[in-house]
């Protein structure tokens, strides 16, 4: 049993009651909602005759279904329009703040809450979206929930939860140039497996983690769920506080000093006890990319697609399914694999530093002939900041399209999607069969810089070669 970890401390602070059956009623400090997983929850609330317990602790935005070309209302897709209209009606009926299109604050839910200072250390954060683990970057305990639980949070500002075990993932050393948090997390998932984290919260710690910026920590925690861990977190430190200071919802004045003191004492102490620990060496990690149909099927860009013999016996049926679906030969190098579509965006890698890293590769170069490449900023604020430093011009000069913010081709609920058997180089988080909108479309996950490199060369390329040139 873990003890003295940030997870344990935050858990204890938010306990409301013990429930029959052994679960715990946990207070939820911040509830985020969007148009896809909330309408049925509001409908259930109406059916049960319940109201929203703490409307000021729920914040809404619209991200999954919004088009990234024209965002004029009504949307061309009547179903998307109905979903947005339903969210607007529910928010106004219940007094919930909605950061809508054109507000200057709209964007992917996991991008906007941190940038508005809503996400803070020591909070419990819930959202009807599995990548809620992102918010753990701040030392919050943040997890995705289903629609029935969205109803529970709306009606009671709490959830029935079972406590997780805590695994510390300690990362020594430093990431090399051209290797990013995305590569680190793909490497971790490749090593521990997509179900390795089931039943655990992941605490990311060690010198390599302390050296990461807040945006990199968000990328890391974002994909904890792809490793099976419902939440992942980094202990709050000076980097965390510097990011938060001055944000619209961050504490200010005298409260700021008190907040920093409280946040600091929440971090896992030197005597913290973990249920399990693993270690990695950041310096040994290459740019990492997926070749298969789960985020765990990853390899270094300088490696070959694993053969069946190189695959653990229990993973072989999945590997065979992946060879067939991806049409990749076991034993062949992944570098040089041709791609059709290059997508930079998502809650994993749609923040300013992601766009900067991709622009550094694209600058002064041209997207290869026949490649469709596009950049979707994670939020209106990210878009504005990127435009202020001319990144949009860098991308468009190189032949990328510069789009409006949203989830876009991460899950293809809007018009951005793969066609047929197209292969995408994608900075998003899931390479599941059919994920990017075509039932036979193929996805290679990688860092935004690697996506930019693929766009320039037309095939999977070690970005370090372009950075050296």
């Amino acid at each position, binding site marked *: 049993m873990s003890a003295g970890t940030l997870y344990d401390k935050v858990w204890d*602070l938010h*306990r409301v*009651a013990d*429930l*029959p*059956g*052994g*679960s715990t*009623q946990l*207070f939820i*400090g911040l509830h985020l909602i969007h148009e*896809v*997983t909330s*309408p*049925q929850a509001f409908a259930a609330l109406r059916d049960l005759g*319940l109201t929203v*317990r703490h409307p000021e602790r729920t914040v809404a935005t619209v991200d*999954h279904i919004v088009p990234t070309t024209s965002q004029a209302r009504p949307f061309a*897709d009547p*179903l998307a329009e109905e979903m947005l209209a339903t969210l607007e009606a529910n928010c106004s009926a219940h007094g919930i703040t909605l950061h809508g299109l054109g507000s200057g604050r709209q964007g992917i839910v996991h991008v906007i809450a941190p940038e508005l200072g809503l996400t*803070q250390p*020591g909070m419990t954060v819930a959202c009807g*979206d*599995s990548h*809620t683990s992102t918010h753990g970057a701040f030392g919050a305990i943040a997890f995705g*929930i*289903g*629609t*029935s*639980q969205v*109803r*529970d949070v709306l*009606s*009671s*500002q*709490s*959830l*029935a939860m*079972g406590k997780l075990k805590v695994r510390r993932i300690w990362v020594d050393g430093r990431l090399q140039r051209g290797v990013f948090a995305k590569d680190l997390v793909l490497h971790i998932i490749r090593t521990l497996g*997509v*179900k390795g984290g*089931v039943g655990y919260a992941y605490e990311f710690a060690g010198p390599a983690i302390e050296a990461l910026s807040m945006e990199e920590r968000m990328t890391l925690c974002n994909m904890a769920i792809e490793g*099976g861990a*419902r939440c992942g977190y980094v202990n709050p430190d000076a980097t965390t506080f510097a990011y938060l200071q001055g944000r619209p919802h961050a*504490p200010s004045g005298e*409260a700021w000093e*008190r*907040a920093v003191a*409280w946040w600091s004492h929440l971090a896992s102490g030197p005597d913290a006890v973990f249920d399990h620990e693993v270690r990695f060496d950041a310096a040994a990690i290459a740019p990492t990319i997926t070749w298969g149909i789960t985020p765990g099927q990853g390899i270094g860009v300088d490696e070959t697609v694993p053969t069946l013999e190189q695959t653990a016996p229990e993973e072989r*049926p*999945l590997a065979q*399914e992946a060879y067939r679906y991806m049409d990749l030969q076991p034993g062949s190098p992944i570098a040089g694999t041709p791609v059709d579509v290059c997508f930079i965006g998502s809650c994993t890698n749609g923040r300013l530093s992601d766009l900067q890293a991709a622009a550094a590769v694209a600058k002064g170069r041209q997207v290869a002939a026949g490649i469709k490449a596009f950049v979707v900023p994670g939020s209106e604020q990210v878009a504005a900041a990127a435009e202020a430093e001319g990144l949009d011009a860098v991308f468009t000069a190189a032949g990328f399209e510069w789009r409006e913010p949203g989830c876009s081709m991460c*899950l293809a*609920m809007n018009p951005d999607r793969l066609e047929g058997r197209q292969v995408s180089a994608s900075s998003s988080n*899931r390479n*599941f069969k*059919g*994920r990017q*909108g075509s*039932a036979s479309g193929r996805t290679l996950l990688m860092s935004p810089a690697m996506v930019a490199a693929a766009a320039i060369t037309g095939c999977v390329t070690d970005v370090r070669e372009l950075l050296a040139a």
Partner: protein
Amino acid sequence: MSTRPARALPSGPIRQHRGRGVAVVGTDIDTDRIIPARFLKCVTFDDLARGAFADDRTELGGAHPFDRSVHQEASVLVVNSNFGCGSSREHAPQALMRWGIRALIGESYAEIFFGNCLAMGIPCLSAEPATVRALQEAIAADPGAELLLDLEALEVELESEFVGANRWPVHLDPGPHQMLVSGQWDATSQLVAHDAELTATATALPYLNGFR
């Protein structure tokens, strides 16, 4: 299109279930496969049955277990490990439930999927790989055989004139187990009942009180 019987949605204590099985074989079957994202464009869950495994079914052109006529009455889904990983979409278990599934037996489940099923009154029972294999083989040999799930004893029994009678243990953690058999699997009423305790917890949280 379908001859599947209309089946009441779960309510009250869930102590037993009797029904035919349908096996969907494979590890790490994610919720994007259980229901592709385009079916998520909806403001109610009512119409989701058609989205269940939609892309896999198209790909297999009628040969998917959910399309085979022998399984149209099935209500127990037998799966392998890490079933329901990926997206938190409750649309996935909703699609299965609206197709007719009332219980799952499998090697293991992703946590959010398990919790979503629990909140709908759908037990996700875990079983040894050998048990799952035996069930999958038995269903293949005799799709008409009925499975009897005893939630109180945590056992599954299969009776078939072709494959004989068999009984296997299944597992469910004590918390979810108690919630299902007592009928308290829908947490909302319990949560709203603790209003005074909720206020006490909130009052003590520094970030709700100017960090005083």
